């Protein structure tokens, strides 16, 4: 089974995935629950039920010690220095880039740009791509279900360029309404679309969006497709070359890596044409008073001293995932997700948002309890050691669509167990009791 045989390749279909079938036959055989012990914070807090990994993940020992080791053994500024320590630091940085390249199956290390996170990657793109492609009257297409990081930068780019921000609408079940694309063609607005940007998985509802269908539509029209993979990279194997996307962004801190790490992947043809965004050291070739010229890829997009320790930590996280087995992780999470879905949706007085088909969703469970506000739900759960998030999840347009201000959200990572979900269910009952 090749690395692209995971969910990504089948994300538009349902339950035909051999993995899922293997899993359903042997639901909990993939990975022991003791994986939790590889996470120092969780090991030190045995009573903590951490269900907020969509906000940020906990970090395994392998990542923490990679960062620490880097500072103790290899710390120096990178590039252009002729002493051994700097050479080691440069190697650590560039090796990390190669790890990302291979994890994503990118065509070249020149396509891997280190950023602070998804937000910075998307800001870079929104600026640079709109400089390259967008003029007055054009359209930038995003969806109603985006995180603000994949919404506001495009909105601001549209305002700057006198263009229009158009939203792919969503249905009440938290899935995208792709009929809209046909509408765009009929009224010939499709010709004005210059950029499309969507999330792979919605952080508000956990919906897996139909990336293949969207990318086919974009490809036919030569429109670059930007994929916000912040919520999918932690859960699905991703092969960027097979993805049909032209750009992909994710955050290291959500995928067991350190804060301050993140990646923008882009196809080289695009990156070559795009103007740089931040400027300064490292990213230049020649600086003259009137004008400057730029360094080659990927450095053109990496201004200033990079966070080498963050890159090293991110590479350690991806290696750790690969060593553990991305498909095993995926299967484990999927199975736990099915269990969570089943238990949550059977509760009285609980509205679960997102697709009712559990195969079209992953890891994120947004809900509200009848007559109890999400913030009160979260506040109560804290007292029984269950850490969930409440609020609009940086997705106000998506909340508005549902006609609600906020939800309570439990999100999974691979250190979660069936016991965690059982405690979540007990906690829901506890909340209902408390506020009865």
């Amino acid at each position: 089974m090749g690395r692209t045989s995971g969910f990504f390749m089948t994300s538009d279909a349902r339950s035909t995935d051999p993995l899922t079938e293997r899993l359903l036959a042997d639901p909990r055989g993939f990975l022991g629950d003791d994986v939790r012990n590889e996470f120092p914070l969780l090991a030190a807090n045995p009573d903590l039920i951490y269900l907020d990994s969509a906000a940020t993940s906990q970090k395994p020992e392998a990542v923490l010690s990679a960062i620490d080791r880097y500072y103790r053994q290899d710390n120096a500024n990178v590039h252009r220095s002729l002493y051994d320590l700097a050479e080691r630091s440069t190697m650590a940085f560039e090796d990390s880039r190669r790890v990302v390249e291979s994890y994503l199956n990118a065509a070249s290390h020149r396509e891997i740009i280190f950023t602070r996170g998804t937000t910075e990657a998307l800001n870079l793109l929104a600026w640079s791509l709109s400089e390259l492609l967008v003029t007055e009257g054009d359209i930038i297409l995003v969806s109603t279900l985006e995180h603000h990081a994949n919404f506001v930068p495009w909105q601001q780019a549209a305002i700057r360029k006198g263009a229009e921000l158009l939203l792919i609408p969503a249905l009440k079940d938290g899935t995208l309404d792709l009929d809209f694309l046909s509408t765009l063609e009929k009224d010939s607005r499709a010709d004005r679309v210059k950029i499309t940007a969507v999330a792979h998985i919605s952080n508000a509802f956990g919906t897996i969006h139909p990336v293949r269908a969207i990318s086919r539509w974009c490809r036919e029209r030569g429109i670059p497709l930007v994929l916000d993979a912040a919520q999918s990279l932690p859960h699905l194997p991703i092969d960027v070359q097979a993805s049909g996307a032209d750009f992909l962004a994710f955050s290291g801190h959500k995928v067991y890596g350190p804060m301050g790490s993140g990646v923008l992947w882009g196809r080289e043809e695009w990156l070559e044409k795009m103007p740089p965004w931040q400027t300064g050291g490292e990213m230049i070739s020649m600086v003259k008073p009137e004008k400057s010229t730029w360094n080659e890829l990927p450095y053109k997009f990496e201004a200033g001293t990079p966070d080498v320790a963050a890159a090293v930590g991110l590479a350690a996280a991806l290696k750790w995932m690969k060593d553990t087995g991305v498909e095993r992780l995926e299967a484990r999470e999927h199975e736990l997700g099915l269990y969570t879905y089943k238990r949550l949706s059977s509760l009285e007085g609980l509205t679960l948002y997102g697709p009712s088909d559990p195969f079209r969703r992953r890891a994120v469970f947004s809900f509200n309890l009848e007559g109890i506000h999400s913030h009160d739900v979260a506040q109560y759960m804290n007292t029984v050691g269950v850490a969930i998030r409440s609020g609009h999840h940086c997705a106000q347009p998506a909340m508005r669509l549902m006609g609600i201000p906020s939800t309570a959200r439990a999100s999974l990572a691979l250190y979660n167990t069936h016991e965690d979900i059982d405690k979540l269910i007990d906690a829901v009952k506890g909340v209902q009791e408390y506020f009865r």
Partner: protein
Amino acid sequence: MMQQSSGDLDDLYMEIILDHYKSPRNRADLSHISDDETHENPSCGDTLKLEVLMGDDGRIKSVLFDGHGCAISTASASLMSERLPGKTREEARQFIDAFLKVLRGEEHPSRLEEWGDLAVLGGVVQFPLRIKCATLAWHALEKTLEELIP
């Protein structure tokens, strides 16, 4: 080891608060008020509409609110609406001011002791993230009073 937050859950959700949450006083359908005049807590997205009716004697006759916020914001609006009638605008303003001072931590919660049931809202100061919940209705009232034709 986990360090528990300073406040205990029952300090936040006192009996009186839960009571006002479950049975809010003076909650009414205010759909005749335009959405533009909705008051919002941007940190959570909750909204509140407020209507203040003045009597001929220059005193507040009644305060009505509409909106489905959290327990704290609902109870705060409900408690406020019970307490305000009978006050002049100036008295109401002083009242609001004193309340906000306590919730901002500029004055001790004991300041609220003579305020009857409203005193329970003093417990919210131990939960910094919920302070905006407790003050939403009060900021809304402040604004509404300002805009009232004198």
